[in-house]
């Protein structure tokens, strides 16, 4: 059984994701902080994208630069920012600088009897910034999978009078 992933907008400018993993916190941290492991899970297969490069120096003050490409798009996409705070096995805080009003993301790993509770908070600089992100329809990967496009179409038909 997969553990469930929960998402909640907890305030005007914050979104929180929670998920439990059946592994100790040091392993979850390792999978997040070693680029060769990180590349194996960060891009969902359904998006059809792949890493062109993945540089990440997961230390306080370090930076990251990811480049993805999709076979249908000529231009690759870059995602980059800095690690504001890294506490091994328990906490990573990073900025998202590819767009002007990107959130600051904080992930914490809390171990309890061999399992890890992961909490990810994405805090936008303002209510407007989060509302704009929502209005853009992009969830941070720029290319919504087909099923969401179909869903959008359906939602459009439901909302129209």
């Amino acid at each position: 059984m997969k553990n469930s992933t929960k998402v909640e907008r907890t305030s005007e400018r914050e979104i929180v994701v929670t998920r439990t993993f059946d592994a100790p916190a040091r392993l979850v941290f390792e999978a997040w902080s070693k680029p060769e492991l990180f590349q194996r899970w960060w891009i969902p297969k359904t998006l059809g994208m792949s890493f062109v490069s993945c540089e990440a120096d997961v230390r306080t003050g370090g930076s990251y630069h990811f480049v993805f490409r999709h076979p249908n798009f000529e231009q690759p996409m870059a995602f980059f920012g800095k690690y504001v705070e890294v506490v091994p096995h328990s906490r990573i805080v990073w900025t998202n600088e590819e767009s002007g009003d990107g959130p600051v993301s904080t992930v914490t790993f809390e171990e309890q009897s061999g399992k890890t509770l992961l909490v990810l908070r994405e805090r936008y600089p303002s209510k407007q910034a989060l509302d704009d992100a929502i209005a853009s329809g992009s969830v941070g990967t720029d290319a919504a999978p087909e099923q969401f496009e179909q869903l959008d179409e359906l939602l459009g038909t439901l909302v129209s009078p």
Partner: protein
Amino acid sequence: MVQRHPTHLDAAFAAISDATRRGILERLGRADASISELAGQFRMTLTGMKKHVGVLEEAGLVTTEKVGRVRTCRLGEHRLDDEAAWIESYRQLWEARFDALDKVLEDLKREKHRERTRKSTRRRTRRRT
């Protein structure tokens, strides 16, 4: 913007994951209909149609009203707005990532276990020599 409880959203997305139920919503978007009209249009038994409408009703996407022997269905108050749709896309993104992360963690656990076994074997061998 309307804030809605996540479990309600889950129910809504589960409800529209089915092609027949999406069809029913589209049909009700044009005009209200009774269960038996819907059953006829979707070539389904009354019982089958009642089940589908029940799921949509639970998710707040459809409301029904019984007058005499006829139960009329119409689109519900709870429509999925942009924010709800965005949050669900966002949730699915992280869910896909985390399900893949589970696999990486399984591999790591196996690897660490093998390492530990190798070390203890080496220690035992050393003690013997």
